[in-house]
């Protein structure tokens, strides 16, 4: 039972972070597609902008890993 709850906790940590990243990237991505249509030379800054929200999911991953490893669920 406890192991299951730990796993659910880890899944929530990584799942919600993934949703956050997805939401942010979808908006930035849509704007980026528009920018690149007009000014393809801005590919570098655009990759940078799209990549920024990925930190959220990495933090989610770190949290999930901590929950699993430090709570003995792993």
């Amino acid at each position: 039972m406890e192991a299951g709850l730990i796993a659910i906790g880890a899944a929530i940590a990584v799942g919600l972070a993934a949703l956050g990243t997805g939401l942010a990237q979808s908006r930035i991505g849509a704007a980026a597609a528009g920018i690149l249509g007009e000014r393809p030379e801005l590919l570098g800054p655009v990759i940078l902008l799209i990549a920024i929200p990925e930190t959220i999911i990495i933090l989610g991953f770190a949290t999930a890993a901590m929950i699993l490893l430090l709570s003995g669920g792993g």
Partner: protein
Amino acid sequence: MKRPMTCIEIIGLKSHLHQTVALLQQVGCVHIESINAFSDVTVRPLAIDASILRRQEELSLLIAELEGELSLLGGATQHVLPPSAIDERDIRSGLATLSPQIVALTTQREALKAEQESLPRYEATLLKLLPSLPQTAYQEEKSVIGLLISRSHLEALEVIQQEVTQLTDGGTEFVERNVDDTTRALLMIVPTDCTPRIELLLGKKDVTRLRLPQQIEKGSLDATLTALQARMRELPQKMAAIDQQMVHLGGLWRERLTIWCHYLHDQFDAYAVLTNFGETEHTFVVMGWVPRGGCEALKTQLQQVLGNQLVISEKPITAETQALVPVALHNPAIVQPFESLVKIQSIPRSDGIDPTTLMALFMPIFFGMMLGDIAYGLILLGLTLWLLRRVGSGTLRDVLKVLAIGSVWSIAFGFLFGELFGTLGEAIGLHPILFDRADGDHIMSLMMLTLAIGAGHLSLGLLLGLIEAIKAKSRSHIMERGGMLIGLMGVFLMVAVLVELLPTGFMTPGMAVLILGIVILSTSMGWIGILMGTIEFMGVISNLLSYLRIAAIGLASVFLAKVANDLGGIAGNIIVGFVIAALFHALNIALGAFSPTIQSLRLHYVEFFPKFYQGGGRLYTPFRSRFTSTA
């Protein structure tokens, strides 16, 4: 690395202006700068007279015409040698001969293509209608009239049927069929003598007639369908014949057109560059940049033709002109592909660090660490080498080279992690040299390893940033980057105590160093630093945690490989199992080529570069002939 540049000034008599421009274009090593950019050069900009502007307009029109013909002929001629002499009259007469032929062929091809797209729709309609056509339709005294109506306006069909019935005193048969999801066809078999009156009626109604192309309309619908199908079979051959003629024309003209195009571009550039020149009453002045050591060589080449009629001198680079210095990247062959990736972000500044070498060192390691599989690395290496033989030049070729280097590192990390198609290596006796990533007991080790690599990468970035700040004598940047670096050292000490690498006695000094770092960082920002200093330092910690993506992507890759192997194993049939596993592994390799590349790029662009890299430079683009740059 960047090639050092020298600022040069060329002064000559106006009577030698065009000859000098032609020579500079031929030598092709001077990046010509606008005279207005140098405030200490007091000459006025060269006045461009109307005849030059008219000539430029003529040339641009001719170039547009040539480029238009070249794009229609297709294909490309990469390397052309400069011709001995070109007469512009030859270009015009050549175009007068070629253009009508190209126009005729492209018009024919477009007409055939339009026919090829429309005929299947007619065929589908006829095939739907023919089986329901009554025998009376084939009688001499009967004619068939077809209508197409949108299915959302079917009421119009009833009205037309009523009116046609009245006109023909009930002598009309109607056949209706849906042609597609939106259209309904109505065929009316009417007495031939009533046709003009019905045509008149339909002319007043806003309906679409089912009219077939004249060349295939052969009286009866059956004959028309046969003619239509014959025409559909004939069209690809006719189009292929036209393509063949275009290829033949291309073979005859492409190289000539490319040479003419280069020649005219050179002429155009030779006029366009004059806007950067300066003048006095009798002389012209050119300011520009050459790679260091190139000035003497340039002098020798120009003086061979013009003797001592030109004065070429080196000018010192001042604080004002430093920002103008163009950047010529000069790296070893193995590092060169990474230049494209740096340029995507921005061109390095002339007085800043060129991060290409650092990127060439770290990016393939990050890539290899994420993919980390012997088999995947070998497959990807084979694929990239095969593609490299087919891709000529450009950014795509550079990316392929980067992937090839990354694949080699992937093979190396594959041995370290003991991975061959994920967990399959274990089955054939392959043991990890470092540790097994897929083993739950080692996930923490993997995360610590990636964080340690991230710590080293970030510290190097901050150290380089600090050196840059010291060179620029920027107090705020020295404090900002120094503070971050000291703070990070404090964090490292504390983490080392937590993971029992250092005795607990180091915890307090660690905290003290961290606080000192944050205080220095905050001080660099003034009053607002009280709040922003801590937030900025949290940003550095976030940068550090971002390196966990190396572990995350790596774990995703190894677990997808494990899923592929497990699914293949439970299939029960060796062939089905092999196919399932192969499909999953193929997907994993495709993801493995894409995702680690993007993530490694991101770690450089977002985490590493901002610590020291200042882009915004201008590329060294020497004024040179198109023949020089393609030869």
